[in-house]
């Protein structure tokens, strides 16, 4: 492990600018949002907690053209690859799910792969938790352990640097003049901080009685006919915000431009909570009721993904809890499925 002073970190980012399009979290009010890095401004926050928006949007765009005029080439830009700074452990798990869907499973998606392959992920420890954080229930620690190139642990104004990939190793070697050898006292500082954030998330889990993922096996099958679904979906307004904001949701709609003289196909994020999501042209709909679609959303995350990929497609980021205008709460539904069925 190494250490980097904040002044040198700024220099590192300056150097990376020539190879990457850098995005970094900044704070606005109580929220953090990603913006393109130009200078190291005061509003930049490397630590703290996850950003407001899911980071899937860098690799799986909310809207993009995937085919035009029957041409066989894959539309691509000359844009530099992304360097995402300050990515938190929950979003790294989101990337893992998307890697499975678009890259590693059966067929490959050239659009995702092209964006993902040359990118640089500089992740960071959470240095605080907000009350919707429950990553630990999904066995995700509030500090990255995998799927990053280098990870930063904020210690005072500076950072402990951990290498997580060959690409990260090459980067640290290339810019070795910016890094120092780590001192033991910084490591113990990091451990204290990690423990503090872990305790804060544990407190959230205890207060909201959120079950651990070890108890999720079979909850969908057992609770399939339960009235939990109708009960919980009662106030749903079918806005699809839970899907849009979720770092693991990957469903999309292929949508053709309405111009009969020109063929252009767009891919836009879709939502399984919307009524016609699974409906066929003949009219048959396997999920005509809202509660069936809520159940389907949970089935996809906690049954389908666990069976096909041995992973639960939830990161414990809590974004869907904040986004839902009807206050439908994934923590409560998981609690009811585990304890009430």
């Amino acid at each position, binding site marked *: 492990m190494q250490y980097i002073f904040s002044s040198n970190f700024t220099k590192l980012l300056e150097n990376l600018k020539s190879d990457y399009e850098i995005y970094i979290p900044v704070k606005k009010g109580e929220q953090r949002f990603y913006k393109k890095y130009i200078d190291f401004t005061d509003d930049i926050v490397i630590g703290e907690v996850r950003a407001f928006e899911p980071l899937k949007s860098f690799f799986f765009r909310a809207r993009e053209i995937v085919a035009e005029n029957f041409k066989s080439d894959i539309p691509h830009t000359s844009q530099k690859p992304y360097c995402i700074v300050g990515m938190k452990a929950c979003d790294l798990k989101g990337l893992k799910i998307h890697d499975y869907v678009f890259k590693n499973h059966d067929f490959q*998606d*050239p659009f995702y792969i092209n964006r993902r392959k040359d990118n640089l992920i500089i992740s960071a420890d959470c240095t605080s938790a907000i009350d919707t954080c429950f990553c630990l229930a999904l066995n995700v620690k509030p500090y990255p352990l995998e799927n990053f190139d280098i990870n930063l642990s904020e210690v005072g104004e500076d950072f402990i640097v951990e290498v997580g990939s060959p690409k990260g190793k090459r980067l640290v070697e290339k810019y070795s003049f910016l890094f120092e050898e780590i001192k033991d006292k910084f490591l113990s500082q990091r451990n204290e901080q990690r423990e503090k954030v872990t305790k804060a998330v544990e407190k959230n889990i205890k207060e909201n009685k959120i079950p651990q993922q070890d108890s999720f096996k079979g909850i969908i099958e057992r609770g399939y006919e339960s009235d939990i679904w109708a009960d919980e979906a009662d106030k749903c307004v079918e806005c699809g915000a839970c899907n849009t904001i979720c770092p693991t949701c990957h469903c999309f709609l292929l949508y053709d431009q309405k111009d009969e003289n020109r063929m252009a196909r767009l891919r836009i994020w879709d939502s399984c909570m919307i009524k016609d999501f699974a409906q066929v042209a003949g009219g048959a709909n396997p999920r005509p009721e809202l509660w069936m679609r809520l159940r389907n959303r949970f089935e996809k995350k906690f049954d389908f993904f666990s069976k096909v990929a041995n992973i639960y497609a939830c990161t414990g980021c809590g974004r869907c809890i904040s986004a839902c205008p009807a206050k439908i709460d994934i923590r409560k539904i998981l609690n009811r499925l585990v304890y009430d069925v």
Partner: protein
Amino acid sequence: MYKIKNPYRPIRAEITGVISETPTIKTIRIVPEEPITFETGQFIELTIPGIGEAPFTPSSRPAMKGIMELTVMSVGKVTKKVHELKNGDIVGVRGPFGKGYPIDRFKGKEILVVGGGCGFAPLRSLMYELFDRSGEFKKLFFRGGCKTPQELLYRGEIADWAKRKDLDIKLSVDKGDSGWKGNVGVVTTILDGIDMDYESGIAIVCGPPVMMKFSTKKLLDIGFKEENVYLSMEKNMSCGIGKCGHCRLGIYYACKDGPVFSYDKVKDFSNIWE
């Protein structure tokens, strides 16, 4: 750059024939610019430029190269436009996608094909494949039904099929007319008393959801094994490669793991007939 084919790009194709089958069903013949070969039961996505795409299982003989036929009922925005197509019009085709009928597994067996209404379309392709490989099977049976004699697809061809020695065929309509000589009643009424061994036989069912549901039930009642009953599941297939999420059926995506499934694979999932 990764050298992966763009899976969302349709291949340009020209319409070279349009046949009106019934008042609501037409068969279009298309010639793609680049050759597309398919196995019977696989599906393609047809693009109508400016409108969108929809999934269809070709109704033509797989061995007929360079040409593909699609039999389409006008039910939605894409199929309505399909019905307006004429010779020379340009469409797009993606695919083929998914897994078709596992013909090799049918070798040496008696095969019963059960069709209903517009479900005759994929089955026409299947029948021609079975005819082309007829010597590999013990015996072929076809049982088909539709609402009225006017709605019977491929009447001329079916009359020719009836002359084949390797095929035992029987048809039924829900409501007959003065010219109808066949059975009257839903298709399940002609599934009894077929001269085959149900327990070792293969059954293939394709038709509207309600017909599939009751035919499957009937086939299991008369002795077919769950793993020998093959169904073409109609789901909202869109991307064709198991990414967009629309056609999920339990742990499967109909577009890549189906659309043909044996009944035992899907029986435990909810609302499979919807």
